[in-house]
């Protein structure tokens, strides 16, 4: 791997920026070059949200991911918009509770997880994003599983200590999910 570009997209409020931030912290912990760039436009105020994360062995040029190696999407408008941009051979992770259509591309690997349903059924309705991240970690190996606990320590704010275990549980649930 010289460089991996990841794109996270969905509705504002689904934890899209947090998903990206979670991955970016792995870069920090592993001493990889990493950048995290959020959308900050009007879309953040009640529309679609997205963020770019770049991992690299060398100094990162553009932090803007236009052709992701890994796409994580949580709503249909985002899939419609970004599916064509994924590099051939790339991987798409999508919330199959909210996206009912199949992936059209045949030159990419697609992984659907009913993350929103799983989250709701397990009493963690706000953590569908982390379930999808768990599946992404499993299928890409982009984040070392050893780092997951350390990232959670860093990223979950002191006020929400109770959410640490739930985040870990959500990630594990996605990691273990098999269709």
């Amino acid at each position, binding site marked *: 791997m010289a460089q991996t570009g990841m794109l996270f997209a969905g509705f504002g409020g689904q934890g899209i920026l947090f998903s990206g931030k979670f991955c970016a912290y792995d870069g920090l912990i592993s001493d990889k070059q990493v950048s995290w760039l959020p959308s900050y436009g009007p879309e953040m105020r009640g529309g679609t949200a997205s963020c770019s994360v770049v991992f690299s062995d060398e100094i990162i040029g*553009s932090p803007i991911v236009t052709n992701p190696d890994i796409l994580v999407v949580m709503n249909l408008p985002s899939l419609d918009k970004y599916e064509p941009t994924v590099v051939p051979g790339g991987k798409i992770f999508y919330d199959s509770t909210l996206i009912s259509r199949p992936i059209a591309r045949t030159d990419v690997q697609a992984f659907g997880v009913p993350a929103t349903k799983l989250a709701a059924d397990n009493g963690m309705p706000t953590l569908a994003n982390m379930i999808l991240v768990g599946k992404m970690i499993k299928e890409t190996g982009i984040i070392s599983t050893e780092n997951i606990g350390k990232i959670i320590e860093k990223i979950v704010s002191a006020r929400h200590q109770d959410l640490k275990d739930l985040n870990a549980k959500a990630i594990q649930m996605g990691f273990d999910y098999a269709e």
Partner: protein
Amino acid sequence: MADKVLMKGNEAIAEAAIMAGCKFYFGYPITPQTEVAAYMAKRMPKIGGTFLQAESEIAAINMCIGVASTGKRVMTSSSSPGISLKEEGISYMAGCDLPALIVNVERGGPGLGGIQPSQSDYFQATRGGGHGDYHLFVVAPASVQEMVSLTAHAFNVAEKYRVPAMLLADGTLGQMMEPVSIEGITVEDHDKSWALTGTDCKRKHNIINSLSLLPEELEQWNLERYKRYEKIEENEPMWEEYMMDDADVCVVAFGIASRVSRNAIKAARAQGIKVGMIRPITLWPFPKKPLLAAADKVKSFVTVELNMGQMVEDVELATRCKRPILMANRVGGCIPTPEQVLAQIVEANKLGGAQ
């Protein structure tokens, strides 16, 4: 080495300013730089500093004049339309020979424009911006780490020459997070005998003023100021050269445009095109020397800018139009893609064969 943390560019500027001894911040919120003010609001009370959200940008810059007059480090930040509002005060600051740091996290213009990234305040930043003959010391970071080092550097240079300094970034750099260590910050100790600190009836009082109704006196003030500008032009230009050793084509880009250009340069090199980059780190003083030297070695230049072609004029001046210059640009909040830059590099490589 200090532990690295993930920080937004805007937050890194604020923390670096505090570490550089800035205890006074006055501002007014505007996207995409509001995190600077938010961070200051959180941190300043904890270190015994002052955070004040002014009633307007104009009030904020004039509060900065007040603090700067006392010789203390002070900062304000805004984004393009807000900087335009501050320009009157910035001109007064220059006229009063006051050091301070003004941060502009640019967004698309003109007018109220948009909120997406831009570099279209280049002319405003590098030509002074307000009325009268003056310059700001202008730094243009290209990473979150550089937002730390250049914030600290700008304070030192501003005090050394008694000029206001500007950190010119854009919405992308302000909003993005990268690992950063807040370290290597030195606070230089420069002469402050001019400052308004109270005379204790023991010395003649100092005067901070930009008004003179005697033309000959005002001329002298201008001439003296330009002697300092000459020294800044001599001592303070900063730039980075990337893959320039064997380059036939030289890309010139700063800030976020230089990051996009790096991708394009790698892609061009993979095609066998010998291309490098000179990245201005100070925009005023502009790094004229390395560009003039490059003009004798390369066959063409490509500038990459988030404006309609502003820095390209400085490249023409610095290289004395010795070589053709192409441009890859987007405006209005759009950012050139590496592919767009690559296409211009390919074109530039076909030009100016005569060495």
